[in-house]
């Protein structure tokens, strides 16, 4: 698991906020949790329609202004709503109904290929060559 630090622009407070980010090469898009996206003042930019296992998943798209190692990027991101009960560890009575750990988007963003593909060859190599 690769964890990095990225700064995301807070359009409400007009400053960057630091986020721990999970690098996920299996994710086409960067992903952020809805209550955090709302607090950052992210503007939605359409809906993306995906197939997720047996049913459609229709999720809002947003442009995310972010900074990584001093360079700024404008990347396509998805905004997903996570139930509050998934933002904490599993309780004993919830065994076998959900993963033990809280949803990763509770306190992180997911960095997918919309960001990874924007990196320079040098930064890409540094990220995966460690």
């Amino acid at each position: 698991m690769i964890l990095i630090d990225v700064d995301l622009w807070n359009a409400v407070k007009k400053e960057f906020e630091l986020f721990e980010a999970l690098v996920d090469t299996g994710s086409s898009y960067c992903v952020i949790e809805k209550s955090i996206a709302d607090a950052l003042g992210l503007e939605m930019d359409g809906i993306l329609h995906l197939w997720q296992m047996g049913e459609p998943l229709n999720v809002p798209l947003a442009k995310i202004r972010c900074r990584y190692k001093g360079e700024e990027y404008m990347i396509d991101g998805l905004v997903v709503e996570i139930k509050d009960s998934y933002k904490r560890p599993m309780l004993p009575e919830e065994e076998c109904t959900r993963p033990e750990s809280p949803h990763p988007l509770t306190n992180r963003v997911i960095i997918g290929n919309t960001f990874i593909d924007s990196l320079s060859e040098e930064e890409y190599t540094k990220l995966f060559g460690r």
Partner: protein
Amino acid sequence: MEPREWVNKHIKELRNKFIGKTVIVSENKVIKTFDGPVNPLKINEVARKICKEKWCYTYLPESEEEYLL
């Protein structure tokens, strides 16, 4: 050392010592801990007040992270 680099280097010790907590790291040490996962915006608010140098945060769950499908 960059805070993230320090976290990556000491992740096993941190996981043993601060299991289930979120930690803010700066100047090669843990500056503050919170119980459980915390909203990143709240962490930023606190870190700006207490950290003089570069900082980062990480959550140390009791079990290994499950990946998203």
